[in-house]
């Protein structure tokens, strides 16, 4: 398995390289003039001398292949460039927004996994019960609600109404913002921080919880009806052992795949959630940078998203071995 892991990491490198290079060239096809943006975005007739200065400083007058090579040389030495809009090094921006997005995504993921799997599991075991019907109904509705609607509803009830109607303090959430301090990377270090984190995490996880619950139910039902489960029951194992030890692990494989695929979106594309909750994350930073043709920022942040995504999917793939011993990794 270790050999498999190492091979996968080695494969990741060309993937990152290709993805970012593609983006790099894409930006040269799109309209938009970096010199204008750098000189304050004024759009006034920038004097020739100034234009030349900027082009020299940033290397815009070099042919594209040269700029390409220079960019990657910079990356390998840790220099991701500077933002055209603000002049701040991209690395600074990455340090600020990337951890926030990862934390939010991890929390959304935990909610998805725990609630989704839990609900789906119970639903499948108690098929056609009242609980099951309720779950089917609510998941259908939940999947149809866009994240910003969920977001605004959560804000309305848990931030505004809870304040104005005097709900107990532990139910009062903040309407937006990003926690400042963290403990052990993923835990907000202050009371206020928790209040800022909970609502966006729920909003972000909301639709996926419904999807996972339904999927879990479906795969569990499929698994429960297989031959080996019948054998286990026939052997005299308790229902609990049958479900948890034998059924669940197999049913989890597609779920885990789903979670892995979703994680990339959670990290890099949570724009709507970030806007509604004014959460300082990568999604809105990438969108803004893309709109403004702030190429270094887009490339830098996308690189982070790609790397995180590849890493998470590697973990997911490795977990298959644990879930299903039949899956071996050929050396």
């Amino acid at each position, binding site marked *: 398995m270790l050999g498999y892991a190492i091979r996968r990491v080695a494969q990741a490198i060309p993937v990152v390289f290709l993805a970012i290079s593609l983006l790099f060239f894409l930006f040269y096809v799109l309209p938009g003039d970096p010199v204008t943006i750098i000189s304050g975005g004024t759009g006034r007739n920038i004097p020739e001398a100034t234009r030349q200065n900027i082009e020299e400083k940033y290397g815009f007058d070099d042919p594209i292949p040269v700029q390409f090579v220079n960019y990657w040389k910079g990356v390998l030495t840790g220099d991701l460039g500077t933002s055209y809009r603000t002049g701040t090094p991209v690395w600074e921006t990455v340090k600020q927004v990337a951890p926030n997005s990862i934390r939010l995504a991890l929390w959304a993921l935990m909610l998805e996994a725990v609630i989704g799997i839990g609900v789906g599991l119970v639903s499948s075991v108690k098929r056609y019960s009242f609980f099951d019907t309720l779950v089917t109904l609510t998941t259908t509705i939940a999947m149809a609600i866009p994240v910003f609607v969920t977001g605004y509803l959560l804000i309305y009830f848990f931030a505004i109404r809870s304040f104005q109607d005097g709900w107990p303090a532990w139910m009062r959430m903040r309407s937006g913002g*990003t926690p400042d301090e963290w403990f052990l990377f993923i835990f907000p270090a202050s009371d206020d921080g928790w209040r800022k984190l909970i609502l966006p995490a729920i909003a972000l996880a909301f639709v996926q919880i419904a999807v996972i619950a339904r999927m879990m139910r479906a795969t569990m039902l499929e698994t429960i009806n297989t031959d080996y489960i019948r054998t286990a029951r026939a052997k005299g194992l308790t229902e609990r052992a049958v479900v948890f030890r034998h059924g669940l692990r197999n049913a989890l494989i597609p779920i885990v795949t789903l979670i892995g695929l979703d994680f990339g979106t959670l990290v890099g594309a949570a724009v709507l959630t970030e806007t509604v909750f004014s959460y300082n994350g990568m999604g809105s930073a990438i969108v803004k940078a893309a709109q403004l043709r702030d190429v270094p920022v887009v490339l830098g942040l996308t690189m982070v998203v790609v790397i995180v995504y590849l890493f998470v999917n590697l973990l997911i793939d490795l977990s298959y071995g644990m879930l299903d011993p039949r899956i071996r990794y050929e050396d």
Partner: protein
Amino acid sequence: MRRTTRGAKVAALAFSLALLAAACGGSDEEPSSSSNGSTGKKEGGTAATGEGLPEDTLVDYQTLSADNPNHIDPATADTRQGSQVTEVLYDGLTQVNADNEVVPAVATEWSGNDDATEWTFTLKEDEFSNGEPVLPSSFKKAWERVLNPDLASTLSYHLLVITGANDVAEGNADEITGVVADDDAMTLTVSLDAPLSDFPAVVSHTVFSPMPEEALSATTGDEINEWERGLMIGNGPYKMSEPWKDDQYIKVEANENYTGDAPKIPKIDFMISKEVESAYAAFESGEADTGYIPPGAFADATSTYNNSTDPTFGLYYFGISWEDDELGGEDNLAVRQAISLAIDRDRINDQVYDGARDAATGVTPPGIPGYAEDLCGGYCEYDPDRATDLVDDWGKAETMRPIKLQFNLGGGHEDVVSIVAENLEAVGLKVEQDPRDGETYFDEMKKEGGCVMCRAGWIWDYPSYYNAMYALFTSTSIDGDNLGRYNSSAYDEKANAAAAETDEDARNELWNEAEKQLFADMAVIPINWYTNQIVYSDRVENLVANGLQAVNYPEMSLAG
């Protein structure tokens, strides 16, 4: 700055006029208070008590409620939001107070010569927050910095009336010959190319702020970006306590070295929201001391919370491209008239603003001396039939490109634009909505080919007719705030004649003529006149937003 909001300090017109001659009192028409009249604090308190917020800090969600500001440096801060922050950090020669009067700031007195072409300001002893003295030369060098061609500031047109400024702007000189800074006598003498009796009002604008030595070396766009994101040093009542955190906040604290009246609130946190609805949600959840009322929430907000919602000197309008082959110029006058007649301003007012704003019948709002009704000449009324006829006269409806209705996201303009789009389609025009990022919107609209039919707002810098007439429509403001790139020598002549006239009544008549010329060419589509849209918590005392939408932060206090 104008666009979204602007708060320039306005020098008391009365003051400058008294110094000249005609103190003919001027017919100051009271701005007709439209619907609510519920401005002010509510008796018995509101749901927004301000409890739980830090004792010594004002948590502000109204200033930077629609997006990250593009700039806060005086040389480049051209929006109301960014310059509100600039105003608490810098004091200029003069300023406009809560009563819309031009009063002294760093200049204790000023006088002009007989034909208002030369102005002399006497400065008091003042210093920047780092102890560096504020001298007449601090002003002169700061102004030269604004004009530096490497910077290409969109605000430089404000200075072009000064003799020698054009040479600096074109890179032919480093010094503005028309400005004489006498650091020993502490006087600043400014010579103008053309008479301008409102000049003391003009210099209240933040672009005329003094700058410390440290800032003078930042003369290009990216250098200013860097300086803005450090700790900018200024001479105002507040100073930056930490660098600007993009998309999060700008935090300021009282400046101990301030030579004026010390501010009563020790700290202000200007929180940055991505859109006005989020800012308002923060206010409603008790996280904020001030908030901005989003469209559609006006009636609710003014009846529930303390608010400041009086009519202001502000115009909400659509700029329209003078250079566009299908919309601009004399050939396409009919379609522009059609557009103006097609728009149902009352419906916009009712639906989006709960009846709070007044439909505009011209550019200049009531309350500005010289205001006259319906300078639009009947074209600002709702008449879709006439509009349809005009579209037929125009004759290009079949082959036209869809008109791009541009607007900035985050400012709550979606509803207005939807109504306008509907109105225009109803008279046979093809339309396309074009939302843009809020932070760079005005930068983009100022470019050639930028504004097609672009939503904009102008808040007067000072209560003077000259302000909008000059900044929005003269040919010298193209690439600046003249978004439509209107270029008419007839208009320029009339505007210059009005600016030069020293007799107030005669001047106002000339301005009316100039505005009529504007509408004869249908160079702009006015929609309504702004009101202030601020809500605030119970613990905030003495919040006054003046006619220029500038909030008097240094004079406010927190109860309890």
